[in-house]
């Protein structure tokens, strides 16, 4: 588990109106970039999709903010919103932590799933919520991922999961760890069905999430500078007793080491996703995929909607 990498202030939903004076005031305060220390006006940061205009540091987004940023306006329909964690091991303090997370994040769990369109292409979407217990994976995250995959299979449409996570949720013990196997199994079926799965890795994605659904995608994208790996850097430093290389476990490092397809700046994210979805949906004339579909009918999901 990675600690403290999630420590960030809450900003505001990118496309929602501010609702109270208090919120307006908070928005107005300038923000210090944690990377280059520049003081940035909240408005300017907002306009720049929460990316530092000086050093391109990508600030974390809440799940709702990210959904607003990526999907076609108003297209998101949440599914399985009510799923909520139980203290199944009777683990000291877990119930209180859950209650606090509900309050802080405004979400019922560490992932939000639903249907949406991006550039007109229908898809099923999962976005992890860093404010919810460091987006750790317990029963509910595992179950919601599986249901999202199943939903995409039912609709024969692509799947996009935006990950960030500290790993399996310790408070649910082995049941949490087994969610790695569960999500991998259901993604095995999805892969067999010949459907497209795009994984977007955001800061930070580690542990059980990185070693299961987040890396089992056809195409893997990452935001610039995101920390991505199995073991956390502190554990590694302790184990090997030496300094870690610069940029170790960052997106750009992983690209160089062959683990991801592309590092995508936030400003290019929607366009890139839209293009990838388009290249996989076979709308072009003379498409080989389309030709085959004509013989073995299984229409492109985008044809209808």
């Amino acid at each position: 588990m990675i600690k403290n990498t999630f420590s960030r202030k809450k900003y505001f939903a990118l496309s929602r109106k501010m609702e109270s004076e208090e919120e307006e005031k908070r928005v107005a305060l300038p923000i210090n970039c944690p990377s280059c220390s520049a003081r940035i006006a909240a408005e300017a940061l907002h306009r720049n999709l929460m990316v530092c205009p000086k050093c391109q540091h990508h600030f974390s987004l809440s799940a709702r903010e990210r959904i607003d940023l990526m999907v076609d306006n108003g297209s998101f329909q949440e599914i399985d919103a009510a799923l909520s964690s139980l203290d199944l091991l009777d683990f000291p303090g877990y119930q209180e932590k859950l209650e606090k997370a509900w309050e802080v994040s405004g979400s019922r769990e560490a992932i939000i799933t639903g249907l949406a369109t991006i550039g007109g292409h229908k898809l099923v979407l999962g976005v992890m919520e860093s404010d919810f217990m460091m987006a750790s994976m317990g029963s509910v995250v595992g179950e919601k991922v599986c249901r999202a995959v199943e939903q995409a299979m039912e609709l024969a449409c692509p799947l996009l999961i935006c990950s960030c996570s500290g790993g399996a949720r310790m408070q649910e013990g082995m049941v949490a760890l087994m969610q790695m196997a569960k999500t991998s199994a259901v993604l095995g079926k999805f892969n067999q069905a010949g459907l497209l799965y795009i994984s977007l890795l955001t800061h930070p994605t580690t542990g059980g999430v990185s070693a299961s659904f987040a890396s089992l995608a056809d195409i893997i994208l990452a935001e610039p500078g995101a920390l991505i790996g199995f073991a956390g850097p502190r554990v590694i430093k302790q184990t090997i007793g030496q300094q870690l290389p610069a940029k170790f476990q960052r997106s750009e490092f992983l690209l160089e080491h062959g683990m991801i397809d592309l590092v995508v700046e936030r400003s290019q994210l929607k366009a890139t996703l839209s293009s990838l979805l388009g290249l996989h949906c076979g709308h072009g004339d003379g498409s080989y995929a389309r030709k085959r579909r004509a013989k073995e009918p299984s229409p492109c999901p985008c044809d209808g909607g």
Partner: protein
Amino acid sequence: MVKRQFDYEQRVREIREKLEELNNLSSSMEFDLSREIESLEEKIENNRERRYQNLSPWEKVLLSRHPERPNSNDYISYFCEEWIELHGDRHFGDDTSVIGGIGRFNGQAVTILGYRKGKDTRENLQFNFGMPHPEGYRKIRRLLLQAEKFQRPVITLIDTPGAYPGIGAEERGQAWAISQVLMTLSALEVPVIAVVSGEGGSGGALALAVADRLLMHSNAVFSVASPEACASILWKDLERVEDMARAMKITASDLQELGIVDEIIEEPLGGAHLNFPEMAEKLKKALEKHLEELVSTNRRELLEQRYQKLRKIGEFRE
């Protein structure tokens, strides 16, 4: 003070040595203490039995990490009339912390894959303390696909602190390698039986635990992360590791209750290492029984059952 190693047997041994000395002394001085000594022996044995029936989860952690605990090499030698170890991931290296190969088990060719710990410093260095790099998981995946091609059942042996947390391991995609094994095992078209024979540490151990049957030694543990890591991360207090071990529900009986473990293999009194032949024979019998069941299940059903078993894990409110 938290105990860091399991020293109960050591203390029993010391007491017995004292009794022996007493006995020798008394016979040279022509006292007859044999009845008293016999009764003391009996008490000790009773105490041992009670003690082992009431091991705390943390004591089981220590026992599962006992340096003399039988390792994968031991079980494979005991099980297989014939055994050929196969090496390499065909990409980067041969990871010695993972053993894999083809054996004849009860007349039947099977693929066996296991994490491998050493028993002394030299072996521990050689086998990297049983902590795989990505090439270990890729060797596993390669041999799994080979088992599938040749329709060989698979037996896995789990005893590892976890995947190795190092620079090279991360550079070469530890997370990617583990996730591929999980996906491959979840749909592998042959029977798979997994055995947690010692320490089941985190996702690195889980990779070999996706199976039709999960067996577990009675003193083995299997946890989402080590109790030490959890205590220091969640409670910022390493001294509370005993409480943490209890809270995490990591013992075989806890995990059977949670529906994760299918059968517990009872260890001999004092642990698997005190009577290896008994332990190995018990495990062999259990493997034979499950193998027979699974081999006679038709393939579609086998896969559907494994899938549903995985798909159902988890509890939540809706």
